[in-house]
């Protein structure tokens, strides 16, 4: 059947070019149809290698379908659809074109069966996504996008170099388990780690995502980091180092999230925290843990997307996103408020909401495999998630003190997109078996036993109690217009400052050298100049001597011509 030959990313790339040619309703129809048809197509495809080709003697597999890539492929189609609905009101060809290319390249990346194809999609992912940041069309967004692009392209370069080393060692480019052996293992690991926002490599995410357009951030939150999670799950399952990296990612961002003022930046920090859970799952590497990581990625795309959509709606309608300037919006945006609370309940992993059925798998796996300290830290960050994403986001945007802002609900397409995401969050949370059936492994896991539900509910309600208590005591840090220093300080402040000082010094030395050279030259000129009585050029020459010299030259010339 020719249909199976059609790689899943191709419709998105074709769609992107149709976007350029079509206008209005036709453009919207094409953009909506592609993820729907593509998603249905994907469900009909049997597992296997569907496209193999050869480049200069290297076997390449740009299209491989198996249970792991299929889960990511499906959620990317769902996310693309929801995000396109969410951005239907946007009339900006640049954003629509780059969003289609971006979604397509994410899908291409998860179906890549070799490292070269992966690298190609990895780079298209970086380049297409930066336009969603630049589309904000402010100097600030331009600068943030530039930093984002440099870091993303660096990740691609590391991947390429790693792939070359891999090919030298193995003689092929097949993308399967890689492991931390040899140079190639570490190079590719760091390349994935940059995109996955490993600690110290994470700041591009919190720097750039909040600077994108309201709709652009929603697209960004779905794809880049989840492609990296997929790549880690494919290349490094069971790598113990990932457990410690993951638990760090789960813990440190929540502190930043509590004191951050820009609510989309709070969500960006909370995104690193959620990816931390996935990375721990990949690091543990058992069937249950990997299922947990994959399903948590699936759910995170939905609930984090929903939260970013609700904050995007707030930004779109009020022009404000800082917690210090918002509050009381439940009065004019009640529907958005409820949808945001559903997203908040899902990310906090309340029973019956989607986070619960996936996060618990990673936690259970950590216990079963004998990592009690890791488990305790994950439990702490699970409580922390509720605190900063579950309570802080809805509370400071929609409740808290009334900011006096009166607006209306966002456009219908935004509400519909949030409604779809919210329904999926509740559906997956209440009936997880459908999601479990598409996971790579069959573990027979059941999240809904009494122990589990009670433990999680106690944890969450007492976290809420802590919030209330701190607030009533006036100990809760108020939202303040501020910037909090993070790793980015090194490349946004320290290095530019150091360069500035260094260059200022170099220029000063350069100026001194030039000046003294000029002085030297001047005195030399003075020495030979004709204004000085003894100057070389100030001697008087007779015109007759000139005639003699030219005669001599002509005579010499004549002589030479005879020889």
């Amino acid at each position, binding site marked *: 059947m020719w249909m199976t030959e059609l790689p899943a990313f191709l419709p998105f790339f074709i769609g992107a070019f149709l976007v350029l040619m079509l206008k209005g309703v036709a453009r919207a129809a094409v953009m909506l149809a592609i993820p729907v048809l593509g998603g249905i197509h994907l469900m009909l495809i049997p597992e296997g290698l569907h496209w193999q080709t050869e480049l200069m003697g290297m076997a390449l597999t740009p299209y491989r379908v198996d249970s792991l890539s299929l889960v990511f492929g499906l959620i990317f189609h769902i996310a693309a659809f929801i995000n396109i609905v969410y951005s239907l009101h946007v009339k900006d060809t640049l954003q629509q074109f780059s969003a289609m290319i971006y979604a397509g390249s994410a899908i291409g990346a998860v179906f890549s069966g070799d490292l070269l194809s992966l690298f190609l999609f990895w780079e298209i992912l970086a380049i297409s996504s930066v336009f969603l940041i630049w589309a904000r069309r402010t*100097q600030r967004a331009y600068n943030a996008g530039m930093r984002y692009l440099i870091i993303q392209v660096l990740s691609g370069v590391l991947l390429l170099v790693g792939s070359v080393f891999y090919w030298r060692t193995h003689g092929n480019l097949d993308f399967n388990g890689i492991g931390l052996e040899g140079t190639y293992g570490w190079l590719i690991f760091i390349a994935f780690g940059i995109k996955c926002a490993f600690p110290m490599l994470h700041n591009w995410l919190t720097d750039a995502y909040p600077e994108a357009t309201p709709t652009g951030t929603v697209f960004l939150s779905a794809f880049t980091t989840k492609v990296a999670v997929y790549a880690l799950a494919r290349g490094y399952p069971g790598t113990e180092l990932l457990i410690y990296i993951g638990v760090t990612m789960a813990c440190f961002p929540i*502190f*930043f999230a*509590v*004191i951050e*003022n820009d609510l989309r930046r709070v969500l960006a920090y909370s995104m690193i925290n959620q990816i931390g859970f996935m990375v721990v799952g990949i690091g543990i590497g058992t069937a249950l843990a990997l299922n947990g990581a994959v399903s948590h990625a699936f759910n995170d795309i939905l609930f984090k997307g929903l939260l970013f959509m609700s904050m995007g709606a707030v930004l779109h309608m009020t022009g404000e996103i800082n917690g210090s300037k918002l509050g009381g919006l*439940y*009065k004019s945006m*009640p529907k958005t*408020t409820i949808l945001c*609370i559903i997203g908040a309940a899902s990310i906090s992993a309340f029973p019956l909401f989607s986070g619960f059925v996936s996060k618990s798998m990673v936690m259970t796996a950590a*216990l079963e495999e004998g990592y*009690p300290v890791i*488990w*305790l830290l994950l*439990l*702490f960050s699970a*409580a*922390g998630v509720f*605190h900063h994403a579950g309570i802080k986001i*809805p509370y400071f945007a*929609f*409740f808290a003190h009334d900011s006096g802002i009166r607006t209306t609900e966002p456009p219908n397409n935004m509400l519909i997109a949030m409604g779809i995401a919210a329904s999926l969050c509740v559906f997956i949370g209440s009936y997880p078996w459908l999601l479990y059936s598409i996971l790579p492994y069959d573990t027979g896991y059941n999240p809904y*036993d*009494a*122990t589990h539900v*009670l*433990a*999680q*509910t*106690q*944890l*969450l*309600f*007492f*976290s*809420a*109690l*802590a919030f*209330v*208590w*701190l607030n009533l005591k006036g*100990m809760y*840090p108020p939202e*303040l217009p*501020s*910037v*909090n*220093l*993070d790793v980015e300080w090194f490349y*946004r*402040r320290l290095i*530019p*400052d150091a360069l*500035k000082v260094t*260059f*200022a010094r170099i*220029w000063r030395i*350069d*100026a001194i050298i030039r000046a003294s050279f000029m002085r030297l030259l001047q005195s030399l000129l003075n020495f030979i100049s004709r204004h000085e009585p003894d100057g070389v050029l100030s001697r008087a020459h007779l015109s007759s001597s000139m005639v003699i010299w030219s005669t001599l030259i002509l005579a010499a010339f004549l002589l030479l011509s005879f020889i």
Partner: protein
Amino acid sequence: MSSNQPGTDEKSYLFDNPQNVKRILKALYGICAILVILDFVIHRHTYLDIEKLFAFYAVYGFVGCVLLVLIAKWMRTFLMRDEDYYLKQESLAPESKKESAHVDD
């Protein structure tokens, strides 16, 4: 936590009435109490000894969150800068270039 907004009158929103806020807080306290009482009723399957402690999850959640907030608040003392901390630097960049151009001449 939220519900439909009944009136169009500016004064009639749900949480403008402090009584409603109190009701919600009371409901929260009630649920917390019930959850702790349930600890006696439901037998939990545990992996670790620490889980067997009475109301372990409740205490851990509460203490964890309080510590989280207090540490984060303390972090503000050395991490917090003005809102335009980076902007100042980055918008100054072209000017500093001009300066250097002068030095160069």
